[in-house]
């Protein structure tokens, strides 16, 4: 067994190139979210595995991992948005709008944000989450209502809108998906929380008219299509990485005193920090194990679900321990003069409720593990139900 990672010359060279580029743009950390996204887009790093024609850089899985490691070290990983690649995929295959090519380019170059409805994924739909109504009017749909969305930045680029087409019918089969440009008239946006990274937005639609060509999929399967695309694995399933925030927390606890004692020397705080350090290390070990299983063509059964569940629990624990140690400073916005770590603590706090990789579907991971270890044969049951 060898746990140390060895890199090829090509991989080392690539890492150095990324480091060099990031070094030249060290001041990026103080830039706005939009500027950061634009920078990442220009490098082709928002959709790194996509081809050059699609504005990506055709990175292999291994090189993508190296890129993400370096972006994390530079505090930029949180701006890499898995929604971008999912929007890219959805628009490429499901839409025929006249702006399609322009959207794809703007998304990949970081000039168009991608917002998705904040709905409970992986379980039966909750009617209260669908408050936008669409009715047909000629070649257009007219949208009214209010929805809650999550996505980077403060200005909407594209909003994947799920609207009910018949309010009196059950939700299933009565939802239509529309890609709504954020510059549309009669669209009122209110950013609720989250100054950086993921932000929650409340968007009100008042007779917003959208061309029929912006419909994603057919009306009957819009919700299923949305859930299917959002749950598909991408290179961004590299994982939730807490390294940078954990390192920030250790630095904070080492530099800040309480009653003339460094916080890290307080027994309770020290134990908490080391506990989260160990949890995070195991997260990385599980990730490395899954990668090795996949590369060596060995059976992957419960492993990925276990890793996801572990990562989610670690992120939540990190958020809790950060609040315990830092108190209210953990919640300071990035523009506050006394904000520690450029607001990365708050971003991590917000991600624990906004990033679907942390906040969503812990139960579905457990269910997958249970199936794979043979506790329940839901797969067979589901198949027999379907037939």
């Amino acid at each position, binding site marked *: *067994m060898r746990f*140390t990672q060895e890199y090829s010359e090509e991989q080392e060279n690539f890492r150095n190139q990324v480091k060099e580029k990031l070094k030249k743009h060290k001041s990026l950390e103080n830039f706005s979210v939009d500027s950061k996204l634009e920078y990442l887009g220009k490098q082709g790093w928002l959709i790194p595995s996509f081809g050059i024609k699609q504005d990506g850089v055709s990175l292999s899985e291994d090189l993508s991992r190296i890129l993400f490691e370096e972006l994390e070290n530079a505090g930029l990983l949180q701006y890499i948005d898995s929604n971008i690649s999912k929007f890219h995929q959805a628009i490429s295959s499901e839409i025929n709008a006249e702006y399609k090519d322009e959207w794809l380019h703007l998304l990949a170059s970081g000039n168009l944000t991608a917002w998705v409805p904040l709905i409970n994924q992986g379980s039966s739909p909750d009617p209260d989450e669908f408050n936008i109504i669409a009715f047909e009017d000629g070649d257009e749909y007219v949208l009214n209502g209010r929805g809650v969305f999550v996505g980077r930045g403060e200005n909407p680029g594209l909003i994947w809108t799920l609207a009910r087409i018949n309010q009196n019918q059950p939700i299933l089969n009565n939802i239509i998906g529309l890609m709504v440009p954020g510059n549309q008239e009669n669209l009122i946006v209110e950013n609720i929380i989250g100054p950086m990274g993921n932000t929650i937005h409340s968007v009100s639609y008042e007779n917003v008219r959208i061309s029929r060509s912006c419909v994603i999929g057919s009306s009957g399967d819009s919700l299923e299509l949305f859930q299917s695309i959002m749950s598909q694995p991408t290179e961004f399933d590299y994982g939730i990485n807490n390294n940078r925030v954990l390192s920030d927390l250790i630095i904070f606890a080492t530099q800040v005193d309480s009653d003339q004692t460094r916080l890290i020397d307080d027994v309770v705080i020290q*134990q908490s920090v080391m506990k989260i350090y160990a949890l995070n290390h195991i997260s990385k070990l599980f990730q490395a194990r899954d990668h090795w299983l996949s590369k060596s063509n060995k059976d992957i059964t419960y492993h990925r679900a276990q890793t996801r*569940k572990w990562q989610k629990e670690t992120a939540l624990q990190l958020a809790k321990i950060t609040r315990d140690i830092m108190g209210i400073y953990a919640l300071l916005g990035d523009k506050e003069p006394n904000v520690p770590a450029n607001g990365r603590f708050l971003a991590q706090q917000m991600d624990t409720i906004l990033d679907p990789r942390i906040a969503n579907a812990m139960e579905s991971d*457990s269910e997958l593990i249970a199936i794979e270890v043979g*506790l329940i044969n839901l797969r067979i049951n589901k198949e027999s139900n379907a037939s």
Partner: protein
Amino acid sequence: MDLSLTELQQLLQNQAREFLDAELPKARVLEIDESEKGFDADLWQKISELGWPAMVIPEEYGGSGNSWTDLGVVYEVLGQYACPSPHLSSSVICAQLILNAANDEQKHSILPGIASGEQIYAFAYTEASYGWAPSNVTLSAKSNGDGYVLNGTKLFVHDANVADKLIVAARTEISSNSEDGIGLFIVDANDAGVSIRTQTGWIGPKVAEVIINNVKVNSSDVLGSPGNAWPAIETAMDCGTAMLNLYMAGGTQRVYEMARDYSQERMAFGVPIGTFQRVQDHVIDALNAADAGKWTGFEAASYLDEGIPDYKNAISLSKSVVSDGFPLACDASHHVHAGIGADLNYGLTQYTKRARTLQHYLGDSIYHRKRMASLLIKK
């Protein structure tokens, strides 16, 4: 990164499984646990014939010079079968104390006996103020002509009750730095000044009180330079902890499997209890603890093999994980099993007893997290 077992490691794993399948049914573990000494000489003889006590002793001293990962593969299986043996005390910790502290003559005279399993050594370290830091060593060693005289009491000493010899950690001088002034002394377990009593309670494997009353140790039985033994002790304890971690990870794996299997068989309301989400959560908790123990355990063993400087941190991290995870997995497994899990003959309690004992051995999770902090913050 390559997480595969080598061909030799696969052979060792299969050999260990086949041997323990044949020699150590769960009823036998219970018999050994309930015996006065908690030791089966016949089993130890067979283990010795397999060459396991020789594995991490260099060939020049009668060993086979295997890697820590090789032995770790065997330890994981030993843990799965809750195998009672003095291997960790004698063939790992004491062998490492001798390798790291003794002179060449002592190595040549002592290590072959440990490697063959004919001689069993135990490490007498902990005292009334139970703990694994150097400051916990207070037993007195006073210089007396060409040797030392030892006085004091050791507690919770693993395998002292079956050992031929004890390696006693004792304080030769009081120093402001507690790492200074510790010596290692070989004491005959049958010396008239040594009294050994197995401590009672729900403890497994067995531990003993060792009272040392005016025991004279000749200079030939002093390991290394008296007063400077801490580095050798720390290294030996690290090696021992690395193996203990995998033993505990193996035990965790087995209690997970017991929970999983039982939840597939036991019916309630017409369905296996494994279909209930709350039962699944317990089984998944045990699985996660098992995998976390296994992978941190093998990572630490491989760091030892490769001489990676961060090995101490890796070992402590793993011990903090298994010290919490093994008892947690046992608790989860008891939740799944309910009443039957408490039946001694069923086999789960043998693991629970070990989990709750071994979580403290060589340092509990709190001790090891503190150690991690001291290693990381120094950086």
